[in-house]
């Protein structure tokens, strides 16, 4: 019975194949396929952006813990490790690779004891490279300041202060900048900034 049906339909199917009917249907947006496919592609691009932002945020958080070293509590460490595991699993599930350096850093954070992690500056730099925002820049500036590179840290703060996201962000950056300028001995400048 199926064979009979196939024989009857064969000429009709061949005719449709010549017309490339399926392509025309997709092009015509009939069934919504033509609309859906590019829209889904745009949504995927947004999903990649969300993945990247989450990895950047995780690396910033790791950089802050790395700076604190001995001071870090066991719960904080296990919380971050759980987050790193989740981040790595989600990247893998979605087949997303963010480069060898990021992969190596995440693997190290997941497996190694804190003392053997990449240094805070490296973690924060990776975070900024992925997503330059207030979180990652603050982590990078803190990592630089911890190495005594006050001028580089202050330069990041000054750049952030030129376009603050909000009054609260401005206050936070101003506080950091004043601390680092104090370390550079620029007390008069600090006084001017505080009074401005």
């Amino acid at each position: 019975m199926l064979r009979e049906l196939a024989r009857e339909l064969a000429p009709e199917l061949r005719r449709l194949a010549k017309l490339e009917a399926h392509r025309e249907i997709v092009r015509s947006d009939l069934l919504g396929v033509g609309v859906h496919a590019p829209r889904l592609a745009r949504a995927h691009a947004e999903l990649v952006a969300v993945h990247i932002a989450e990895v950047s945020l995780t690396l910033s958080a790791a950089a802050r813990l790395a700076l604190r070293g001995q001071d870090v509590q066991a719960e904080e460490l296990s919380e971050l490790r759980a987050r790193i595991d989740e981040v790595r699993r989600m990247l893998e599930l979605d087949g997303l690779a963010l480069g060898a350096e990021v992969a190596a850093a995440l693997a190290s954070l997941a497996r190694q004891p804190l003392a053997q992690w990449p240094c805070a500056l490296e973690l924060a730099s990776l975070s900024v490279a992925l997503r330059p925002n207030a979180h990652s820049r603050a982590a990078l500036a803190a990592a630089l300041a911890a190495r005594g590179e006050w001028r580089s840290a202050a330069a990041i703060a000054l750049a952030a202060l030129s376009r603050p996201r909000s009054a609260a962000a401005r206050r936070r950056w101003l506080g950091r900048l004043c601390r680092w300028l104090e370390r550079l001995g620029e007390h008069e400048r600090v006084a001017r900034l505080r009074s401005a």
Partner: protein
Amino acid sequence: MASTSRALESESTRLEHAQRAGAADLGRRTARALLSGATPREVLARLMAGDPLGLRARVAAALANEALFLDSDRALLRASAHVARFAPRYRGQPEPEAWLAARVLAAVRELADEEHEGVGREGVGQAAGVGQEAALPAPLCELAAKLKLDPLALARACAALNACERVERRAFRALVIEARELDVAARDIGSTPSETGRAARRAIDAALGALERGGAA
């Protein structure tokens, strides 16, 4: 007679409550079914097939509440991506309504932050920053044509407004876009009329400054 009427009313109220509870339960089960047991990409594909979680309305509400001037379609795609990415973390608490609202708000704020930082693709402000009219969202170009403004200048004005404080954006939206009475706007914002007026003034100055830098068409 009166007791029959009361009994009917009571029965009607009971049925209404049961229906509402049933709808809420169905909503919870639908949300959990959509969010669980898949990769973020798979959840995203589910969400893109007809907006089953009503994200479009949630994004519109978040944009209105934050008074952000963003490409709403891109905000919807970002919110869908956020929900999809964090769906595997969702364990049923808080209730789906609250969880979805939090995810949508995070997505909208993230997009505004990225615009401020100049990250991303065709954000309202990004194209203005690099001077690429072709990269502007279509709705913004249509609005610019209606207002007889240069699209890039309008994009700059939107970016300038988005960079204002939330209270300034809300005051601007209430008084300029929605043309509401000052007292009503101030009450809704939770501020005094004079402060609301001043906040709107600061937002207007920011927007006008950006428009003037671009020039009118």
